[in-house]
């Protein structure tokens, strides 16, 4: 009787408890699928804003772009672009460091990335203060603030993710194995996406 109870206990221990196992693709791992779907949805969101921008610029076609007497600070935005591009290099440095087991390098890379991101946002806010038009000034003002503001919101979210990653790095949560630094890898991919989107915004709004 006692042995039968023990056998029954073992049988129960082997059973799966909790919610059913999630279905997943046999061809693509779930992290990759998740981030790809997220990035595709983000590209569509930005795409809607770019469609509005090109509609206003090409289809409505005002006599000049930006409309007189507005001017865009191309050089300041160029420096800001360089700052954001540099931050992609520093986050890459942070991840290379943790892959080699260098935890000091990880902390340094993350802190530098955070500071560069914060500097980008600060310069952008300063640009808004001194640019001389608001979102209520013509459709040009609306689309300018919508596009750059949408991107700025993404930088803000990225800074939040980097803050969590940096705090965890200082608490020693990350290690060299791939599964042990996923908390930096995923914000890193997001940060690169934000960087690439800014390059597209800068080219479209300030250069072309």
């Amino acid at each position, binding site marked *: 009787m006692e042995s039968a109870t023990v056998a029954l206990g073992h049988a129960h221990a082997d059973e799966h408890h909790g919610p059913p196992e999630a279905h997943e693709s046999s*061809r*693509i791992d779930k992290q990759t699928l998740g981030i790809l779907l997220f990035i595709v949805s983000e590209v569509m969101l930005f795409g809607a804003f770019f469609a509005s921008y090109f509609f206003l610029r090409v289809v409505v076609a005002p006599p000049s772009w930006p409309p007189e007497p507005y001017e865009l600070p191309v050089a300041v935005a160029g420096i800001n672009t360089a700052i954001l591009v540099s931050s992609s290099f520093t986050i890459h440095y942070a991840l290379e460091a943790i892959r080699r087991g260098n935890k000091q390098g990880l902390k340094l890379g993350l802190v530098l990335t955070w500071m560069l991101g914060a500097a980008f946002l600060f310069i952008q806010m300063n640009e808004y203060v001194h640019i001389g038009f608001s979102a209520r000034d013509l459709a040009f003002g609306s689309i300018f603030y919508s596009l750059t503001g949408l991107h700025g919101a993404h930088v803000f979210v990225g800074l939040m993710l980097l803050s969590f990653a940096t705090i965890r790095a200082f608490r020693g949560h990350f290690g060299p194995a791939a599964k042990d630094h996923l908390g930096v890898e995923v914000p890193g991919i997001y940060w690169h996406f934000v960087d690439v989107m800014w390059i597209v915004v800068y080219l479209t709004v300030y250069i072309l």
Partner: protein
Amino acid sequence: MKIGISEEAVFKWVVIVVVAAVSVIALTLLTRPLVGALWGLVLVLVASWHGYRWLRRKWRES
């Protein structure tokens, strides 16, 4: 083997996008915005074609 993604692979694309953007900026400043825009369009089409082929190859290998 399942299709995966890493920060390293994404970073390579960032470098490629930066180089492409510099070429568009240079062309726009040297000529006219329309020329820069057309060059940018060509680069986007080439990148899309490469991306599609890469994904198809990875899908077959998985």
